[in-house]
């Protein structure tokens, strides 16, 4: 079926330009500014100045970190998804509900928690030292370094893999597995030779998301003493007036990230081959038999490490504040909490609105791929780099935006339109273009059609996407740290300042708890509403 609504080539290219130009300014402006600053004295100068920073080993280290994080996340996410969807494990519904929740805990807060736990004289090492008969204060295990960072990161990003894998398993046509069983394969063989390959697109998508997250992370590596490109850039930003080195490094980092993303797009470009069969019967649950206990233990441990431990440690630490102290502290922090909620809500609303416009125009063939590709580039720019680039670019090019909270919202647009588009497009895909045609045929103009037909139908999907983006904005640290205008600190920034000032102290733990609560509440609401479901078509 050819494109559904009449468009002349001319009007489409105008519409393309109208969206592409601002998007290009927003995304490429900051990067261009950095490239200009980084290379203003020539590539040779930059190479000399970065020569002894050890860029190559650093890139290798980050690659190792991202790979380890992805592997660990897959080891947690895939079996949990299978257990939640396919097994007869008692409590599998709890797993299905709880496993996405670690996404509500920003990984840098997880890093604070595990820093406390693994401190040399902290509970874990004290216990181990005592058990091993070593002098108190000995550090038996350390959370610092690539492995510790990978562990912490994977605990809080594995839900990306879990969610995609679980959705894939739920939609997979069980007949294929039954056919394989019919040929005499064992359950394990079926899992590895049929189920897993079928899940490949979902796993690749989730895996690359996790990989990119770890690759561009700033908070966790910074707290857990892993020297990465983002921390080098941040140290240069904080400790020098120099533009060339941090800009040059930012450009290098962005280029590498973009090539990873391009690889992702290429791999994902092949599309999905999960067999979606409209109303198939669900697959029969697999009896766990003797594996029941180990499987339950596995689920319990993963969820404890990712949910119970962080919340418990934060609550314990925060409880060292007296109620009076806590109240005084909270009232001092209220403006920042409100800042955070306000900016995240406006950011999420604008991001979703823009994503809806882009997604809708693209789904109806009225807009090319240019805009979404631009935002994909934005998504790939690490927050630290984006912050530096935007501050420089906006002060130079758009000074009236610089220094107001608007610049934060623009930053969130660049970073989060892509994840928003995923949700929006999924919602839009369920609306047949003929519904809109029908409304046009019954006397509605294009706008009225959008508000009366399209919007009400995508709204349930939009709520989910909105909550996701709200959470992403709410917990954004790296870019916000640099972009925030004076007097407009957000919760993550306050947590960061408190932690950096005096280490993980009760006040920081208390703030972190507030952030987790603010982020978790809409998420829980979404899960609950999602369960009830809206009977549409």
């Amino acid at each position, binding site marked *: 079926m050819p494109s*559904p609504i*009449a468009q002349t080539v001319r009007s489409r290219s105008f519409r393309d330009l109208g969206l592409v130009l601002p998007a290009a300014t927003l995304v490429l402006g900051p990067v261009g500014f950095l490239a200009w600053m980084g290379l203003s004295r020539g590539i040779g100068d930059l190479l000399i100045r970065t020569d002894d920073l050890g860029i190559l080993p650093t890139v290798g280290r980050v690659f190792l970190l991202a790979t380890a994080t992805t592997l660990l996340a897959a080891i947690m996410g895939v079996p949990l998804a299978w257990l939640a969807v396919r097994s007869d494990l008692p409590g599998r519904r709890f797993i299905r509900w709880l496993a996405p929740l670690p996404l509500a805990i920003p990984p840098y807060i997880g890093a604070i928690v595990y820093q406390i736990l693994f401190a040399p004289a902290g509970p874990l090492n004290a216990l181990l030292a005592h058990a091993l008969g070593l002098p108190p204060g000995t550090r038996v295990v350390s959370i610092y370094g690539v492995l510790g960072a990978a562990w912490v990161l994977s605990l809080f990003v594995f839900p990306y893999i879990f969610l995609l894998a679980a959705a894939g398993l739920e939609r997979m046509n069980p007949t294929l597995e039954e056919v394989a069983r019919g040929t005499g394969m064992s359950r394990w063989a079926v899992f590895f030779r049929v189920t897993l390959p079928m899940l490949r697109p979902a796993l690749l998508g989730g895996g690359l998301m996790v990989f990119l997250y770890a690759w561009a992370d700033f908070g966790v590596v910074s707290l857990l003493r892993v020297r990465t490109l983002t921390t080098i850039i941040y140290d240069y930003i904080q400790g020098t007036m120099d533009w060339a080195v941090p800009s040059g490094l930012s450009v290098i980092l962005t280029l590498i990230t973009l090539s990873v993303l391009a690889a992702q797009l290429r791999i994902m470009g092949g599309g999905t081959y999960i067999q979606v069969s409209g109303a198939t019967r669900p697959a029969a649950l697999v009896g766990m038999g003797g594996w029941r206990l180990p499987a339950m233990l596995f689920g319990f441990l993963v969820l404890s490490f990712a949910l119970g431990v962080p919340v418990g440690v934060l609550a314990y630490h925060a409880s060292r504040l007296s109620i009076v102290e806590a109240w005084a502290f909270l009232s001092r922090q209220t403006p920042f909490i409100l800042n955070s909620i306000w900016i995240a809500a406006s950011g999420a609303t604008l991001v979703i609105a823009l994503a809806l416009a882009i997604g809708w125009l693209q789904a109806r063939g009225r807009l090319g791929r240019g805009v979404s590709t631009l935002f994909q580039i934005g998504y790939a720019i690490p927050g630290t780099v984006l912050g530096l680039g935007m501050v420089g670019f906006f002060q130079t090019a758009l000074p009236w935006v610089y220094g107001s909270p608007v610049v934060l919202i623009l930053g969130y647009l660049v970073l989060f339109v892509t994840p928003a588009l995923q949700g929006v497009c999924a919602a839009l895909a369920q609306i047949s273009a003929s519904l809109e*045609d*029908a409304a046009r*045929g019954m*006397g*509605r103009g294009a706008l009225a059609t959008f508000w009366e037909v399209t919007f*009400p139908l995508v709204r349930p999907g939009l709520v989910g996407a909105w909550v996701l983006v709200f959470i992403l904005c709410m917990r954004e640290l790296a870019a916000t740290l640099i972009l925030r205008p004076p007097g407009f600190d957000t919760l993550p920034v306050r947590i960061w300042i408190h932690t950096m000032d005096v280490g993980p102290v009760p006040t920081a733990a208390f703030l972190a708890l507030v952030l987790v609560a603010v982020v978790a509440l809409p998420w829980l609401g979404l899960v609950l509403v999602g369960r009830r479901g809206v009977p*549409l078509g």
Partner: protein
Amino acid sequence: MQPLIVLNNVSKRYQPGGPPAVDALSLSVEPGEILALLGPSGCGKTTTLRLIIGFEAPDSGRIEIAGRVVADSRQFIPPEARGVGMVFQDYALFPHLTVAQNIAFGLKNLPADERTRRTQRALRITEMEGMADRYPHELSGGQQQRVALARAMAPGYEAVLLDEPLSNLDADLRAQLRGQLRRVLKKTQKTAILVTHDQDEAFQIADRVGVLNRGRLEQIGSPEDIYHTPATRFVANFVGAADFIPGTVRGEGIHTEVGVFANANGFPAGTAVEVMIRPDAVTILPDRVGQAVVTQRLFLGADEVYSLRLPSDVEIHSNQHTTMALPIGTRVSVKLSSSHAVAFASPNSESQ
């Protein structure tokens, strides 16, 4: 009387330089008439509907509705201002609205009581009373189809366009709804254009049938004309089953291996032609010296379809009542009722 819908030399391509979806199409529909556009998928019939209602703009040509130009090279009136109702192949019922709200969707500008009255009337005509407060997903396919029809007719537009309205239903229901659809359209005196790839649907519902092929109108006329005197080989082939037997014009008639036919088209003597033969015009009788051999037999219930091989190895078919069952390999004589025979210049000579 002035025609209600007129297409004059309308063309449309989706990609510049690509194949035309609609190619210099001209047709007109009288008020109260039901026209079926029949053709295989991709023939441009749905595009024609979309051009008429205004979801697409023509590249060239002119479209008029009720005497008003709605699209030509200078102007384009958007769909919402054309006053034409449409029933979609997937019905396009708004899933978030009840049946009554769906039907009332096109009645926005009317006062509330008038809106209610018209909704009730549309429900009554389509025999959907009592379903007003259901949501589309609570209805069966046939009920959804009727709501879609009711919704398209409720605004009181003179013209209704129907895009494969019955194709999503199973065979029994489809057959049953054809009659109902025609009855409703005629009772409300709507002008309708129906698009379908199903000739039975076209023949049973429409007053006139237009056959489209690759964006061009091959033939337009009454169902009987289309079936018995197809204007082109494509029409002959697409509408009903047809076999082609080579023949030559000699003297007064067309000579073939199964007999001589009238040269109704007046081909000049010596022309190589092909004669179209419908299986129901072929009668066979067991005959040990007959010229044809039964090669296959398909049992259809009331009828049987025999495949016959002629001496020249051309295969033709014959519909026979099941009263007589001939085994494969039986030698038969072939008799044709020549009123059903139409000749075309043979493809080879056409290309010269």
